[in-house]
C-alpha cells in the first residue's frame, strides 16, 4: 500500500513545463531523498504532492485520510503579523500547550516557545517547522531543503534527528536536497530529478574511508552518504545541464 503515488505528472509554472512525465511513489516508512540541480522541479514536485499545485496532466493518488507533515523552505510572513512559536504550532488545529512543548522538545527547539517567528535563525526555523509537522502525527513527512544554510555537522545532526523521528513515528520521509552527491545515509532511495526522473537508487555508505572523512568532515556519525548517479540516458542541448559533469568524483573515476 503506497502512501502517495504520482503517475505521468506534468506541471507547468508560468507557461514553462517544470515537470515532464514524472512517476513517483512512496511506501510507508520509506526515506526518499530527491536531488537535482537548481530549477529541476524538486520543490515543484513537493508542492504538487501536497496539493498546492495542480498538474496539467497525470494523476496523484493518495491513501485516503493520509496525514501529511510539510516543512517548507521558508515562510513569507508579514512583519505586521505578531506570531510566537507556541501560537504558530496551534495552526490550523488548536493543540494543548503541553503537546506543543513536547513537539518542540522532540524537534530540539524547546527553548524557542515564546520567541516571535520572525526572529528565528534558519536552523531554528527548520526545527520549529519540524515540530509543527510532528504535531499532526504524520504518516508522510515532506521536507523542502531542510539543511539549506546548515554546515555539514549541522546537516548531519538534522539527518540523525529525522532518522530518529522516523523510527519513533514510523512515518515515511520525502526530503529535497540541492546537494547532488552527499545525501542522508538513512535514505532508502535517492531520486535524481531534472524535469523528469533521471535515475534512482541506493546511496553508498562510505563513512569509514579516510578520503570520505576528508570530504564530510568528522563528527557526522555516519549520517551522510554518497549517491552515485547512474544515468542510462543522454540529454540533448535543450536540457540545460550536463549529466557527465554531475557525476560523483568516484563514479567518474570508476567509469
Amino acid at each position, binding site marked *: 500500500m503506497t502512501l502517495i503515488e504520482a503517475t505521468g505528472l506534468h506541471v507547468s509554472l508560468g507557461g514553462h513545463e517544470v515537470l515532464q512525465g514524472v512517476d513517483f511513489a512512496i511506501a510507508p516508512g520509506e526515506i526518499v531523498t530527491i536531488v537535482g540541480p537548481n530549477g529541476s522541479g524538486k520543490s515543484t514536485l513537493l508542492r504538487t504532492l501536497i496539493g498546492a499545485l495542480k498538474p496539467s496532466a497525470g494523476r496523484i493518488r493518495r491513501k485516503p485520510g493520509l496525514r501529511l507533515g510539510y516543512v517548507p523552505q521558508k515562510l513569507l510572513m*508579514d512583519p505586521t503579523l505578531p506570531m510566537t512559536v507556541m501560537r504558530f504550532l496551534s495552526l490550523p488545529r488548536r493543540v494543548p500547550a503541553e503537546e506543543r512543548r513536547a513537539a518542540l522538545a522532540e524537534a530540539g527547539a524547546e527553548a524557542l516557545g515564546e520567541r516571535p517567528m520572525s526572529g528565528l535563525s534558519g536552523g531554528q526555523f527548520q526545527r520549529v517547522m519540524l515540530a509543527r509537522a510532528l504535531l499532526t502525527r504524520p504518516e508522510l513527512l515532506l521536507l523542502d531543503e531542510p539543511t539549506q544554510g546548515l554546515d555539514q555537522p549541522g546537516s548531519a545532526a538534522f539527518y540523525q534527528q529525522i532518522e530518529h523521528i522516523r523510527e519513533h513515528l514510523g512515518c515515511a520521509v520525502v526530503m529535497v536536497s540541492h546537494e547532488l552527491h552527499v545525501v542522508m545515509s538513512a535514505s532508502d532511495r535517492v531520486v535524481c530529478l531534472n524535469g523528469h526522473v533521471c535515475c534512482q537508487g541506493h546511496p553508498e555508505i562510505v563513512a569509514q574511508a579516510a578520503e570520505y572523512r576528508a570530504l564530510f568532515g568528522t563528527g557526522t556519525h555516519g549520517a551522510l552518504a554518497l549517491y552515485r548517479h547512474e544515468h542510462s540516458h543522454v540529454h540533448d542541448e535543450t536540457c540545460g545541464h550536463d549529466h557527465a559533469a554531475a557525476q560523483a568524483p568516484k563514479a567518474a573515476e570508476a567509469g
Partner: protein
Amino acid sequence: MLDDFLVRAALAGLGLALAAAPLGCFVAWRRMAYFGDATAHAAILGVALSLALSLPIVAGTLGVALIMALLVATLSERGLGMDTVLGVLAHSALAFGLVAVTFVPGVRLDLSAYLFGDILAVTRGDLAVIWSGAAAVIALLAWRWQALLTATVSPDLAWASGIDPRREQRILTLALALAVAVAIKVVGALLVSAMLLIPAAAARPFARSPEAMAGIAAGLGALAALGGLWGAYVFDTPAGPSMVCAAAILFAVTTVLRRLTG
C-alpha cells in the same frame, strides 16, 4: 435615546470600528491595503447604479464591490502584476462611478456624502444595516479564524493541512465587500481603507499574538470613532475625516510609546 443624532452617529461609528479593525488586521497581514482601496472606490460606481436602478445603496455597493474583487482575482491570475491590476481597476471604478452619477436623472446628488461619509445623517434603518453588516463580518472572521490565519501564514502550509487558501481568500473578499458597503455611510468610500488599516497598524506595537492585535485594534478603532465624533462636535469639523484623524493620532501615540518603552 436613538432620537439623538449624535447617539446614532456614535453607534454607527462603533459598529464600523468593531468590524473593520479585525478585518483590517488581515488586510495588513496579507498586504491587501490596495485591494481594500480598490473595493472601496468601486463602491462609488455601486452608489451610481443603485440610484439609477432605485436599489438600496447597500445592495449596489455590495454587488459592485464583489464584482470588483472577482475581476481583480481573475486578472491577476492572467499574469498581470497585482499593483497594476489594482491601480487600473480602483481608479477606473472611481472615475466611472463619478461619471455615471451625473447620468442619473433627476438627482442633483451631493457626492461628498458618499466620498467622505455622512455619519451625522445616519437613520435608524442605516444603523440596522451597519450593525447587521458588522455582525456578519465578525461572524465570518470568527468562523474561519484558524483557517484564515493558516492561509495567511503560508498558502502551502494551508494546502498541506487540507485547507484551500483560495476559499479563505474568497471569504475575506466577501467580508471586505460587506465592510465597505457598511462603511460608506460612516466614513465614505475614500476613507474606508483608513478605518481598516490605521487601527490595526496602531495595535501592532503592543500585540504579541494575532488575537491580541485584533482585540487591541478593535478597541483603538472604537476610541478613534468616538474621539473623532467628539472632535467633530467640538471643533465643527467633518465627522468621517475627524475619525480618521483620531485614528492617525492614536497610531502616532502607540508607535512613539513603543519606542520609548523599548
